[in-house]
């Protein structure tokens, strides 16, 4: 009887990495308790965290391997399932070469799972076709900040929020998406820190801010260049810092001369006086900590946007000290770790380049196996290749691209075009429903491992209960497949810790980490190596990894698609406090599911009136790519001319509408801005779900 067990672990939602304990009864997790002594969360959690028990409940879980038979799935043995998957992978490679197969790893899985995924792709399939959803969240951060600073992660720590006298929140909504971190910002504000918010939406923090720059969608570079214009014109730049540590200053100062306040006001809609105030606040602050998010990265100019933010930070010298920095808030619990582990087509663990022959030789030697040398495809690249019949077999580990990737119809077409789609999943997600084989995996509560949070802190994940049915950790499945596909025994690990010990030996920035040390220290922040055995709370103190940082001159360029007479409104996307990603876990909680209808369109009262919409009324939203029906939430959270949809809901997927036009460097799609038109549904007519609309279209 009773709840007598409680196992401390790391929350599986978002990149903050709060501590939680799983309270168990028999083999079931029945409740969640916060951990008061946790370094980051200090006894706090968000609504998602408190609901985590329901998210992984055995109810609705896939319990045994499933094989597609016509329109249905039937259960089969592990032996049979693994044999079929191995055969399909061997066939694909035999027919078209290693480039015809690939792995989509998972930002929700552990470091150990991600390490195993890229090792499986590179050493077993012999391809660099490995990627994960960082592609659609922070690939521009990795690319942009590596160019300007030499490292693509949060430069500072969450604790630094308390050390800042100005906090800048740029294109992110941390109270909803990184709630405990957002709470720290609110607490800092109450204690007297100033708050500057840059966002097209009037977010909760924007309502509390000392200054809110409510820019038009997709005008980040113009705005940031405008701030730099003022800073250089007034001589507010940090000259000493620039001289000592930054290259490329002159070219940027020259470029931003074109961005005078009047022109920037015309482009962004932000009053020139507010630009001046913001520039002054940022340069005058003793320590200004800047956070940014998807509002910066999810654009066709994503990488340039990141570099524009970096320019501002460097110009003011707000980096390399406590309470400062440029801090991309990573969305998923382990998206930092999945990147660190090299679940990306161009880098091995620790961002060691695939293009470097010495790196390839190092891994080939350590793994005892030849590795791929040809460059790999990104996730959207693999999808495109599949549509072009050049790509045959894909493993997707716990991601749901049908709901989360742009232009849903194209994603579905790609997955249907594959010879074999293998999905490792907890539940039958929209993506899993298209699979040929679904393999049941252990949730975070059922396995050991580590997650790396957004401040580069590696923390322990601990098994509290056994996996339900025949579910297994992802790394276990990959180990079995390695043996069957290639007779490779180098992935037959006896536990997560063995994988961690292997990966630390090959990942310089993790090299001084071990499970016992992580536990002793309450997590370790990379770089954690012989030079920094206790980790690194903030980066770039004395020098940048590339020596001197670089400022890069950038030009404003609007979104790929703009409103016009046919599609007159901007659509942007957002997240809600209550849900996480595709909703496959959070929507299993009766409490969270009760909070919102399955799909929402935020719309300004003026636009609602123009279109005859009432609060909660049905609305049809169309773009050049698709149609959804959902419910209107009338609010001044969005300005006139802009509507916004959360992407959590398969019934009303915003990705029916979004544009997959991409950032040329990182292939990041432009999820934050496209053009739509809307019409009110007749009163009493309920919005139809995506499935219902598809059925009708088929008829």
């Amino acid at each position, binding site marked *: *009887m*009773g*709840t*007598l*067990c*409680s196992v*401390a672990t790391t929350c599986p939602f978002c990149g903050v990495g709060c501590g939680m*304990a799983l*309270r168990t*009864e028999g083999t079931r997790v*029945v*409740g969640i*308790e*916060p*951990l*008061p*002594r*946790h370094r980051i969360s*200090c*006894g*706090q*959690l*968000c*609504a998602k*965290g*408190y609901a985590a*028990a329901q998210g992984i409940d055995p*109810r609705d879980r896939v319990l045994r391997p499933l094989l597609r038979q016509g329109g249905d799935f039937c259960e089969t043995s592990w032996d049979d399932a693994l044999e079929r998957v191995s055969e399909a992978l061997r066939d694909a490679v035999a027919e078209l070469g290693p480039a015809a197969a690939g792995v989509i790893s998972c930002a929700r899985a552990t470091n150990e799972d991600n390490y195993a995924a890229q090792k499986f792709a590179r050493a077993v399939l012999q391809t660099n076709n490995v990627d994960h959803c960082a592609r659609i969240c922070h690939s521009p951060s990795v690319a942009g900040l590596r160019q300007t600073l030499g490292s693509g992660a949060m430069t500072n720590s969450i604790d630094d929020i308390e050390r800042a006298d100005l906090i800048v929140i740029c294109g992110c909504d941390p*109270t*909803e998406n990184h*709630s*405990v971190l*957002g*709470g*720290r910002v*609110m*607490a800092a504000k*109450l204690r007297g820190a100033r708050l500057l918010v840059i966002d097209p939406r009037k977010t*909760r923090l924007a*309502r*509390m801010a000392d200054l809110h720059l409510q820019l038009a969608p997709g005008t980040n570079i113009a705005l940031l260049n405008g701030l730099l214009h003022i800073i250089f014109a007034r001589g507010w730049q940090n000259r000493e810092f620039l001289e000592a540590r930054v290259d490329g200053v002159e070219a940027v100062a020259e470029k931003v001369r074109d961005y005078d306040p009047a022109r920037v006001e015309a482009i962004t809609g932000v009053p020139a006086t507010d630009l001046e105030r913001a520039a002054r606040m940022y340069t005058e602050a003793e320590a200004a900590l800047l956070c940014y998010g998807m509002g910066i990265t999810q654009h066709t100019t994503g990488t340039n946007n990141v570099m524009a933010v970096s320019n501002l930070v460097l110009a003011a010298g707000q980096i390399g000290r406590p309470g400062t920095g440029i801090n991309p808030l990573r969305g998923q619990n382990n998206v930092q770790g999945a990147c660190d582990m090299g679940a990306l087509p161009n880098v091995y663990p620790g961002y060691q380049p695939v293009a470097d022959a010495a790196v390839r030789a190092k891994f080939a030697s350590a793994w005892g196996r030849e590795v791929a040398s040809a460059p790999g495809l990104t996730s959207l690249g693999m999808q495109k290749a599949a549509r072009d019949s050049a790509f045959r077999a894909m493993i997707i580990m716990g991601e749901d691209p049908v709901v989360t990737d742009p232009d849903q119809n194209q994603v579905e077409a790609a997955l249907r075009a594959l010879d074999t789609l293998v999905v490792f999943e907890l539940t039958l997600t929209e993506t899993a429903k298209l699979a040929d084989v679904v393999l049941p995996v252990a949730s975070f509560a059922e396995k050991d491992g580590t997650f790396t949070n957004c401040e580069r802190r590696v923390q322990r994940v601990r098994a509290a209960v056994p996996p339900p049915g025949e579910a297994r950790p992802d790394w276990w499945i990959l180990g079995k497949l390695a043996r069957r596909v290639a007779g490779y025994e180098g992935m037959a690990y006896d536990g997560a810790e063995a994988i961690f010990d292997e990966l630390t030996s090959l990942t310089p920035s993790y090299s001084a980490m071990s499970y016992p040390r992580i*536990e002793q220290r*309450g997590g370790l922040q990379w770089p954690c190596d012989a030079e920094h055995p206790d980790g690194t709370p903030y980066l770039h103190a004395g020098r940048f990894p590339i020596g001197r940082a670089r400022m890069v001159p950038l030009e404003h360029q609007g979104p790929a698609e703009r409103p016009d007479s046919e599609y007159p409104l901007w659509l942007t996307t957002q997240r809600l*406090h209550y849900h996480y990603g595709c909703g496959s876990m959070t929507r299993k909680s*009766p*409490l969270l599911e*009760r*909070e919102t209808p399955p799909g929402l369109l935020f719309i300004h009262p003026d636009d609602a009136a123009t279109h005859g919409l009432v609060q*909660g009324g049905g609305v049809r939203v169309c773009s050049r790519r698709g149609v959804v029906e959902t419910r209107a939430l009338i609010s001044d959270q969005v300005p006139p001319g802009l509507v916004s949809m959360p992407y959590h809901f398969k019934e009303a997927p915003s990705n029916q509408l979004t544009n997959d036009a991409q950032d040329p460097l990182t292939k990041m799609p432009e999820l934050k801005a496209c053009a739509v038109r809307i019409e009110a549904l007749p009163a009493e007519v309920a919005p139809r779900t995506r499935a219902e609309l598809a059925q009708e279209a088929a008829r």
Partner: protein
Amino acid sequence: MSDVYELTGLRQLADHLAREARVVAPQHDGEHRCFALLSEDGDLEICREPSQLPLAAKPFLFAERESLFVFDGARFVETPAPSEPLVLFGLTACDLTAIAYLDRFFEGDPHYVARRRAALLVGVDCERGCRDGFCDAMDAGPGVRDGSADLVVHTAPDASPLLFIGSERGAAAVAGLALEPAPADATERRARGLEAAEASLGARPHIAAGIARLDAGEVSAELWEELGLRCLACSGCTTVCPTCTCFTTTDEPEGDGARRLRYWDSCLFEGFQREASGHHPAPTAGMRLERFFRHKLGEPVRARFGRATCVGCGRCESACPAVLGIHSTLGRIAAT
């Protein structure tokens, strides 16, 4: 009851009680503390800082996930709560006051009552105030209130712990334990210890001042909405509050039928009160926050239940990401 004894140590008492029942006491694993089953070799380390034990022993009496009944396709069959004897060991005065309130609130709730009847409560007096606690202001501590525990342990530095028998059930539970009678001044020693503990809590005038303003209706709607803007509806405060009792029910398919489960719920959620028709009696976050505070502290609720439903444990202060704990909020109200 006035029997008082001297203990050689807390372990002596816990081990004795463990012969007849399972003993649940504060345990720790590294930095993680919680109430859990006391193992024979486990440390018995009393924790008198409520915020360090976020859920206290609440789940052992009001389970976070309780099966109510099963529908087998034809009939509804109650699934009774466990009723094996259990000792809840090391409860602080505030948590015991909370249990006394739960006893009253959940009178007639078969699942709570079954768990509660099976539980023997062993309290510990606090030696000093804790960071966020204001139990003295809420008449809930730092000394264990009469009648709220079956056994009460009073500790003091450099002295053997004293054991006070709080009920006949407590007396029966220690029968057979070779106890030394306490020195004659035991009751006075306890009184002095509690006086010192109370003094260490310090003056917190904003608690009483804030409650007075709340009762006088002097808190404006604007202030509630300003505070409500910060409320994330995370459910942290209601999860850690030892007197929060709200629950929701759901049906889980099982065989040909279904199982009805109840889960902890939170009145700060927007969906908590939204009716099927869409009507909402408390449509704004500020209104929901106001209701929470009135329910914990307000005069009509005090009149209904004979005391405030807040016991001053201070847990909400550390659990709230938005600095809306009772301390902070009463401070804000008192200062406005």
